[in-house]
């Protein structure tokens, strides 16, 4: 990214912010898909059963904790990778 000048960096920053809402919505819909897929498999009624509802609740909390942890590791590994590339 160090090839961008100041003005370009500002433009790029705007782009990043623009994408953040998208990223959040992406996370959200991935979470819904995942927990719906893993927890809801009984279609004998139109409403969630208590069991399904409990499953969804645990699944979504766990998914958020999961993606938070993966996000932290991702940033660490990415920083490490950048360091190694600059050493070359």
């Amino acid at each position, binding site marked *: 990214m160090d090839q961008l000048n100041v003005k370009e960096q500002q433009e790029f920053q705007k782009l990043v912010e623009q994408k953040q809402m998208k990223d959040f919505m992406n996370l959200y819909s991935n979470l*819904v898909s995942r927990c719906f897929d893993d927890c809801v498999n009984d279609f004998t009624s139109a409403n969630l059963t208590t069991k399904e509802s409990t499953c969804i609740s645990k699944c979504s909390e766990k998914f958020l904790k999961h993606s938070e942890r993966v996000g932290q590791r991702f940033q660490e590994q990415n920083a490490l990778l950048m360091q190694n590339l600059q050493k070359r």
Partner: protein
Amino acid sequence: MFGLGGAAPQVSSQQKLQAAEAELDMVTGMFNQLVSQCHNKCINKSYSESDVNKQEALCLDRCVSKYFETNVQVGENMQKLGQSGAFMGRQ
């Protein structure tokens, strides 16, 4: 749609449109997901008939209904978790 969007004081037209577009893309994405997931859960893949039969139709209706309930519940869960400060700065 989905009640997202919220109140944001003093945002430019461009920002509002970008938020609206992001929301539109999400709703479209969720619809496509729904089509795909309820197909997996309800449609018989032997394709002996070209109609959606009664049993499949009933399953689809319930599938959509349960998907919306899931969606609402996940939204509420995320808000609660966000308020409890259990997570990042996301939310």
